[in-house]
């Protein structure tokens, strides 16, 4: 179905990033590109779906064939009928505020007749079980549902092949599981799937082959079995996340213990008439790394924002060293690093970003240098934060938190969409900060991260495995 013959590619004005790749993917196969960030996984999916060099300009050599046709000979819009693309962040690819318009968009572009547009759109919505969402504004859907809508809109044009570029980067474990079912359904119907991904566990039952990409080359091929048998040490060495599902470790619960550095007593949150959560008892002390976990929609992020004073609690109290503090004062003591790093940086360089509003004495400068070095950002210190990769931005946000000097640090899903190497750097840093006397809170679903650095667990909504 897909054939790559000695394909090399360089983005305009850059060094070549794909070198002599040969690949054959049979119809109905599911192939996954794995490997460290920045080694060409995404570029490979772009080459297959034609966005490179059509949209991302550059020079391509070698032969690419889809179903026997040379890709160089057909225009991009013909390709759009054969290949559906799904990207990282569904939020910012929607052109419509509601489901049907979004799903129909591709068909409208491709010049189908009105009847055909309607048949295809309604058909896809029905097959994917999305009928219930027809009247919900797309912005109000959960990220898992948004990703499903993105797949539906790629599917409406009737492609035989789908490419996915890190589709779970913004999803929690549960939504990733649902995505896995959607992909399994596509595969059952004979579609060919090409996925570039860090998170592996949701693909283990689905994928036929895992291709390890390193330095723009396909260096190794794993069957799911071989990958599952890879030891944790070996996986970490080549920068992979753990392939099998990891159970969250058994940790002591972080319920209310009086005298802790930060405490929440019977905290409630209601928005309008809806109760997000009620009567939350929680505490954390210096030296602890508390994992805040729980299903989607149990209010983990809302709870974190209440702790750090970005939101006001509807009931109960938040105490620091036994004293009740209003939201404005809490902000001086808590640093909150949101999962979405897009609007978090304000200055023109990494070094200025970490020193923002801090005194610039030699002591602070030295600490900043040291932190950047430990997070592998020192060589990027003069770069503009906007030019960093997703993992680097997460690390920069972590650096800002560490250097802010505040006593409680909260990180919201800091490892979502990161490779094994980045995960390790972040977990080491969190551990060390706790040892330096900080109180650390991580909202996470990542059992690997919990295992690596967390000392306590706080389960929101439902049962508590820690006890």
């Amino acid at each position, binding site marked *: 179905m897909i054939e790559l013959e000695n394909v090399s590619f360089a983005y305009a004005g850059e060094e070549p990033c794909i070198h002599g790749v040969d690949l054959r993917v049979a119809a109905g196969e599911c192939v996954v590109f794995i490997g460290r960030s920045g080694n060409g996984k995404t570029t490979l999916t772009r080459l297959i*779906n034609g*966005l490179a060099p*059509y*949209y991302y300009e550059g020079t391509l050599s070698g032969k690419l064939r889809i179903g026997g046709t040379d890709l160089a000979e057909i*225009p*991009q*819009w013909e390709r*759009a*009928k054969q290949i559906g*693309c799904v*990207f990282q*962040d569904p939020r*910012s*690819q*929607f*052109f*419509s*505020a*509601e489901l*049907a*318009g979004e799903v*129909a*968009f*591709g*068909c*409208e*572009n*491709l*010049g*189908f*007749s*009105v009847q055909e*547009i*309607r048949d295809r*759109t309604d058909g896809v919505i029905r097959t994917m079980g999305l009928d219930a969402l027809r009247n919900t*504004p797309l*912005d109000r859907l959960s990220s898992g549902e948004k990703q499903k809508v993105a797949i539906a*809109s*790629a599917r409406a*044009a009737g492609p035989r092949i789908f490419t996915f570029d890190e589709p779970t980067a913004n999803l929690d474990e549960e939504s990733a599981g649902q995505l896995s079912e959607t992909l399994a359904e596509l595969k059952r119907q004979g579609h060919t799937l090409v996925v570039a991904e860090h998170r592996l566990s949701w693909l283990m039952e689905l994928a036929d082959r895992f291709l390890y990409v390193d330095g723009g080359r396909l260096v190794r091929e794993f069957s799911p079995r071989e990958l599952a048998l890879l030891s944790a040490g070996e996986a970490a060495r080549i920068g992979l996340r753990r392939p099998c599902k990891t159970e969250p470790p058994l940790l002591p619960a972080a319920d209310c213990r009086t005298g802790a550095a930060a405490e929440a007593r019977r905290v409630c949150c209601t928005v309008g008439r809806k109760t997000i959560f009620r009567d939350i008892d929680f505490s954390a002390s210096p030296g602890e790394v508390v994992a805040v976990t729980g299903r989607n929609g149990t209010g983990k992020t809302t709870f974190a*924002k209440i702790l*750090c*004073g*970005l939101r006001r609690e509807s009931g109960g109290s938040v105490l620091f060293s036994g004293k009740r503090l209003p939201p404005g004062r809490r*902000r*001086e003591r808590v*640093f*909150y690093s*949101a999962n*979405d790093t*897009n*609007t*978090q*940086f*304000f200055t023109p360089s990494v070094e200025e970003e970490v020193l*923002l*509003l801090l005194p610039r004495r030699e002591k602070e400068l030295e600490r900043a240098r040291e932190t950047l070095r430990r997070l592998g950002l020192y060589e990027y210190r003069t770069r503009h934060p*906007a030019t960093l990769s997703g993992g680097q931005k997460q690390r920069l946000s972590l650096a*800002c938190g560490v250097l*802010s000097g505040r006593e409680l640090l909260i990180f919201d899903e800091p490892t979502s969409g990161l490779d094994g190497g980045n995960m390790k750097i972040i977990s080491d840093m969190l551990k060390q900060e706790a040892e330096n006397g900080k109180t650390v809170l991580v909202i996470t679903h990542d059992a690997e991260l919990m295992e690596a650095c967390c000392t306590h667990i706080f389960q929101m909504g439902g049962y508590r495995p820690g006890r």
Partner: protein
Amino acid sequence: MEKKKAGFAVAARLCVFAATLAGVFLTDGTDRTWIIAAMLFCVLAAQKAWKQCAGFAVFYGILSLLLYLIRFHGLRMAAFSEFHVFLFWWLTPVFMAAWNLVSAPPGMLSAFFARVHAPTGAILGLLVIFRFFPTMRAELHGLRESMHNRGLTGPAQVLRRPGNTFEYILVPMLLRCLQISDQLAVSAAARGIDTPGPRHSYYEQKLRVRDILAAALYAGAILVFLLIGGVK
């Protein structure tokens, strides 16, 4: 779905808007524009747009009251001058017709554009305009939180360095705007936006009798209004 069916076609709404412009700007007696406003309330009611009806009724009611006080009881405005009160009162029919036009579902608007063979770029632009508001609202919210979090919103910081504050708001927002436009462009390219040839739409619909009737009735009424009331 009931409500969607009650709404007039875009062509009809456009016709209503054009007729309103003519009526408001050509009439000799500006005092009589309340007749046009009343007609527009009927148009909104015929579409079962009760919320819009109520909103404009309150808006128009307050302005009429102010105008009445200004004219007959010598009220003088301290802020927001008499000129503005009069202007807004006079232009309310235009606002109503315009709102009725732009509050048509984006799908219907783009279907109308496709029908009149507007270039793909225009349709794309139209869709982007409607995406702007929900997207920016979310981004601004995120930006405000990160500014709070980094301590950039304290009064001391803002007052001492207003220039920096301006930069801290504008730069992340603009960078994010560019990022979003890139992602939208990739998404459009992947879904065949550059396909040449005619384009159809999911929401394409034939003009119904009630659309034609409404447009004709409204335009006719405006014509009668101008003929009887006189033209400038």
